[in-house]
Structure formats: structure tokens, C-alpha cells
């Protein structure tokens, strides 16, 4: 953990916030299982991206990367190998895209969330393509793009409301 934690934040506070964020990814994962029932091929729109983005904004990049790994490990344990691989590729690509957009552009919260969500489904499609050995699955890309946009708009709004609160909890002096 040393080196990942921002210097101004106390260790206890950091561990507590990271634990809370990881719990949030697990809970969002469960909610998403219900919401994604209508989507084809076990694809997810990536509600847990919201936590990764909040970590990028309110803590730092290494902490967000740690949450990415934890989230994928959680899916490996709860939903099995192929779902875990899909999740790992999706969430890693989404992390890369959102981190880059937040650092380098003035794109709005909603656009970044939308593009992050699209990156999440694209990462899953690429992983599924590797597992299946055929590009047939890309026929799902349009429907996934539309549902990603819907999800991205929601996560963008929630993100803007939530991340300053996480920041406030982290920075608070005792």
C-alpha cells in the first residue's frame, strides 16, 4: 500500500475509503447482474466504472488501478473464469480511457462516463472474441453502444455528485 496512498491522507482513512469503494464495486456488480439480464452474451455496461472514475478523481491513479484489479478478482471468484476475463478486459480498457480523458481533455463528466462505458463493453467484446475465436460477437456492438450511452449518462451524473464527497472524507482532518 505504501507509495499508493496520497501523502496528506492518514493510513486508517485511506484503508477505510478504499474498503468502502471496493464494497461499492461489489454492490454495483450485483445490481448490474439484474440490470444486464436484457443484454446479450453476458455483457455488462460497467456501472462499477463509477467507482473507478471516482477513485481517479478523488484519490489517485494507482489507487484506481488497484480497485480495477480487485474488481476483476471479485468477478473471477463470484462468476467464474470467462466472466472474470471479460470483466478484467472491460474494466481495464475503461480505466485507461477515462484516466486519459480526465487528465488530458476538458470533456464533460457525462461524455467521459459514456466513453468509459463504451470502452468497457468494447474490452469485453475483444475478450469474448479471443475466447470464442470468431468475430461473430461484434454483431452485438450497436446495441451495446446504445445501452452504454444510457448507462454512461447515469454514471456521469452520479459521479459528479459523489466524488467531491469521497474527496471530503479523505481530506478531513481529525
Amino acid at each position: 500500500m505504501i507509495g499508493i496512498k496520497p501523502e496528506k491522507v492518514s493510513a486508517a482513512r485511506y484503508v477505510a475509503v478504499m474498503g468502502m469503494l471496493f464494497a461499492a464495486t461489489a454492490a454495483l456488480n450485483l445490481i448490474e447482474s439484474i440490470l444486464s439480464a436484457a443484454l446479450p452474451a453476458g455483457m455488462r455496461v460497467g456501472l462499477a466504472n463509477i467507482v473507478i472514475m471516482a477513485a481517479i478523481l478523488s484519490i489517485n491513479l494507482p489507487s484506481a488501478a488497484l480497485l480495477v484489479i480487485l474488481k476483476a478478482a471479485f468477478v473471477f471468484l463470484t462468476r467464474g473464469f470467462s466472466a472474470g476475463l471479460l470483466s478484467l478486459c472491460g474494466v481495464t480498457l475503461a480505466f485507461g480511457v477515462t484516466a486519459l480523458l480526465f487528465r488530458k481533455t476538458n470533456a464533460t463528466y457525462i461524455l467521459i462516463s459514456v466513453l468509459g462505458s463504451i470502452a468497457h463493453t468494447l474490452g469485453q467484446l475483444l475478450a469474448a472474441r479471443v475466447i470464442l475465436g470468431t468475430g461473430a460477437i461484434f454483431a452485438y456492438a450497436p446495441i451495446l453502444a446504445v445501452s452504454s450511452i444510457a448507462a454512461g449518462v447515469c454514471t456521469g451524473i452520479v459521479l459528479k455528485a459523489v466524488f467531491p464527497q469521497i474527496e471530503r472524507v479523505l481530506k478531513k482532518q481529525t
Partner: protein
Amino acid sequence: MENKERKVINKRDTIIMVLIIIFALACAFIPKLADDGGYAVIKCGDVVAARLELNKDGDYTFPEFEGMVFTVADGAISVTKSNCGDHTCMRTGSISRSGEVIVCVPNKAAITIESKEQSDLDVVLK
């Protein structure tokens, strides 16, 4: 970029998203205009496991996909039984037009539809 100046949404980004939606919808509806296929091609990885004629009704099983049952009825194919965990392939329903697919990631199964003209017959199952 300072996040304090970042906006929730603006005109430029709305236009970008609308363009993505239009593009995606265009891609989604092009396959719907295609004619009915005629053949269902079932692949295991990149190997063609079977080609089924969609006008021959019946239930099919294959050694490559243990526990899966493929059903052809009314010119469409669907997965009616699967041993995978999430049954996403079964929920996809039946497909009949070229461009439509059913996939089962855990079983490495992919079903696509091909029209009669394209298909060079490897095996015809009767």
C-alpha cells in the same frame, strides 16, 4: 485539466453522443434489412462444427458442445438447453437473419446465419 472547471455536460459533448447513437442505430438496423439466411453456422472457436438448414425443424446436439441443445423451428434457430452458468445464449432467443448471432462464451459456441449463396457446404445434416 482542472476538475473544478469541468462541466457535467455541454453542447459539444451532447452532439458527440447523438452522433454515436445515430451511427450505432444505423449499424443495428442494416442486418435487419437482410434476407432470411437459410443456413445456421455453428462454430466452436474458429472451427465450423455444423451447418444446419433452417427449413429442417428439429433438435440437434453436438459432441463439441456437451449439454447444449440447438433447436431449429419456423426457419429460425435457438439454443434451448445449455449447461453454462448464465444461460445468456438461451435468453438471446431465436435468430433467422444474416448478421444475427447467438454466442455462449463458456461453451465457446457461436451461431451465425449465412445465406444460401455464400455457403460452401462442408456438411449437410439431415
